[in-house]
């Protein structure tokens, strides 16, 4: 059976402006980003599927034709922060998570 949990992940002020941070939920590592331009938080898996490295929270965020994305710091594979789709036309997909802001904290919805 699936359950959905809103996990209180971090203080909003701990997520750098236009940058990323990594949080731990049980054994899962999740990258959270804040885009100043969009005034929005995004969350996705921290593991880059290309070389299986725990690095996406350390990537550069930006957009491609308006679609918010993160580029892996190792080989610059880009992923949409909305759909998780790889934006270099490659066969990679990452998991993204719904995020909401409440009383100064970032919450992530996790399905278990």
């Amino acid at each position, binding site marked *: 059976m699936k359950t959905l949990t809103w996990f209180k992940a971090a203080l909003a002020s701990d997520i750098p402006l*236009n940058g990323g941070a990594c949080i*731990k939920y049980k*054994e899962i590592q999740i990258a959270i980003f804040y885009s100043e331009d969009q005034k929005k938080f995004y969350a996705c898996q921290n593991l880059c599927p290309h070389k299986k*490295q725990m690095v996406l929270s350390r990537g550069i965020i*930006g*957009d*491609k034709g308006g679609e918010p994305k993160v580029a892996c710091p*190792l080989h610059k594979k880009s992923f949409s922060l909305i759909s998780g789709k790889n934006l270099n036309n*490659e066969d990679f997909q990452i998991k993204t998570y719904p995020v909401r802001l409440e009383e100064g904290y970032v919450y992530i919805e996790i399905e278990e």
Partner: protein
Amino acid sequence: MSSDKKINLVIIGNGMVGYKLCEKIVDTGVKERFNIHVFGEEPVPAYNRVRLTEYFNKSLNDLTLAPSNWYQDHQIELHLGDPVLSIDRIKKIVVSKEGIRISYDKLVFATGSSPFIPPIIGTDKKGVFLYRTIEDLDKIKEYAKDVDKATVIGGGLLGLEAAKALLDMGLETHVLEVAPRLMPRQLDESASEILKGKLEDTGVHIHTGKSITQFSGNGSVNEVLFHDSSNLPTDLIVISAGIKPRDELARDCQLEIAPRGGIRVNKNMQTSDPDIYAIGEVASYNEMTYGLVAPGYEMADIALSHLIGENKHYNGSDLSTKLKLIGVDVASFGEATELKELHRTIVFNDKVKGVYKRLNISVDGKYILGGILVGDSKEYNKLAQMMKNNDVLPEDPSELIIGRNAEKENILSLHDSAQICACNNVTKGMIVSAIHDNNLGSLPEIKSCTKAGTECGGCIPMVQEILDAVNQKKGLNTRKVLCEHFNYTRQELFDIIKVKNMKTFNELKRHYGKGNGCEICKPAIASMLASAWNDLVIKQQHIQDTNDKFLANIQMGGTYSIVPRIPGGEITPDGLIALGEIAKKYDLYCKFTGGQRIDFFGAKLNDLPEIWRELGHYGFESGHAYARGMRTVKSCVGSTWCHLGVQDSVTFSIQVENRYKGIRFPHKVKSAVSGCVRECAEAQSKDFGIIATEKGWNLYLCGNAGLKPQHALLFATDLDSETCIKYIDRFLMFYIKTADHLTRTATWFNKLDGGIEYLKDVLIRDSLGICEQLEQEMQSIIDNYHCEWAETVKDSEHKKKFRYFVNSSSYDPSIQFRDERGQKVPELSIS
């Protein structure tokens, strides 16, 4: 498959393939479904037989694939020195030599092969050995101590390896091959002729077409006799004349055997008894046995997938090989020698250089069927790839093996089907039509649209050349704008930053850009801002490229490496002790860099500020190994110690390194100072290099040792130190202002119209009237220098940026290390 009842699996054979099956069972997490018994004939656990030759100068441990306790740890019962002697297929029981009886649900034959012993009289004499097991090698090693002459029977892959081992032991070594040529299965006559010549140059004596009748000698062998009545004196003989599958046990229990030997298997690796599998050299698929390890591994994978109810099939293996035989490149792929169908052949044979290349192509000239490369096999990957993918050949396929004739030929004259990106199989035609159809104007757009250049990046220069050529044809002036967010070139943006006094990315984007930015414009502009103002890069941490973001080099596994600056490579004993103490405290792997410094690896993100606080305490500054900036100024010891030196190269290199340290450039910059013309510091391979003369210094510019080595060119001679530095100031600032992002000085130089004379005009004769400005700008960056690590550890806000998790103080739990030669190295497996 029910999960409560475990399958009793018996594996006969603990060679490389038998072990691989165990390893795959453990690695894929299905071990819980099996009780496993492994029977091995040899007294030691599986070792790397492919590297057997290395055993001559290594210990067994180096070759062992997994120690005995690995099997214990994973509850695999390993019976060594205890071969299975019989199988009762009705009762499903195996019985071993020691009398162990185990019943099985599934049985796997991985018994491998044994050497084929040719029918020659005297193979039982003392001094005649096989070349197959560790025990064989031990015996050869022992016997070789007291003899001078050795002979290898068999000129195939393994025989030539054995010859190399014997040669290394100092023996006069002969190779006898009954076929008229070496490696008859892989090479044609001309190729083996070239190989023979090359091997003979190394000292191996090769005799082909020699039919042997007898090994003679009284007790011990002392000569080989041939059919033609000639003879060859020898003290030791190693037989390596091919293999035969170890299928005797399978014959005993009446499994189906292929006519040329080997247990017959289907595409699931099942034998004629569906509960019994065969993998590796003992298996015969489609009447073929495979004497290589890669097909064996593939078979292990297929057998396992069938055992756990998955659906992978075996379709035969590709036998293409590329290897170095006694220092000679040899590659053979596809249908190399025996061609079934009609074909055409292109041959390049350079007997002087010892290079032979053969390409077999289909009659219509469209496809590669196979080929051979000897002496130079650098095209192997590309060609084997084209063959596998059934790529259509260019109009003139010979260019694939002999290179393009005219260096400066327009790239658009290539055939549309010519492959540009081998990794993603993108052709010239695909790139050209992508540019036209989607109106692409930049390299990143082409990469994203066609995938060309996204893997190894080796083809990027060609892709750029195609883009430039297409634009030129369209009559467009090639203007490389940064990316979709900035419609300016790097040079234009750098001017804007300076003239409009822009200090941050956001400011620049607000006025001159659009969108949110991306991984191209953010680091490029970060670098320009740093070059222009030399402000602390960590203040704008999130526009920095990976390594600048944390002021350290990210490495595999997500840990970082740290390089403290050691100007000129000069260091005190106390400095060395301090580095040692710090490395020990934080458990860091240590290695010398190519630039006379010490590199610490395996630092965890959270520890970086603390490590740097301690380094700073002992006076070490950032070495900027992570930056597109000044790296090292290498030096030789110079006239202070060396009786050949004519100037004090160490003092000058320290002065130069300290002058430019911390400055960001379009790409990294390396330098060196040599104290005399012998050039021990290798200054001519650097972005700028300085070589001492009796009268002063010669300055060389725009060399490179990396991807495309290129000697630096002599720019000015017999300079005094002050003038030399003045010229370097001008040169570096001119480079900062005019080069594209990520362009090394050598690449930048190669695109400059007018070459070195133009640089002399601008930087010595001041033809553009900018020299004074260049010097001033350089001085102002230099005056702004601060060690960015010293600044970072001072400020608690900056230090916070190095937390791995923001909601936990723990380290990255996915980082694992293992020990190698007494130091830790990353274990690269993330589940």
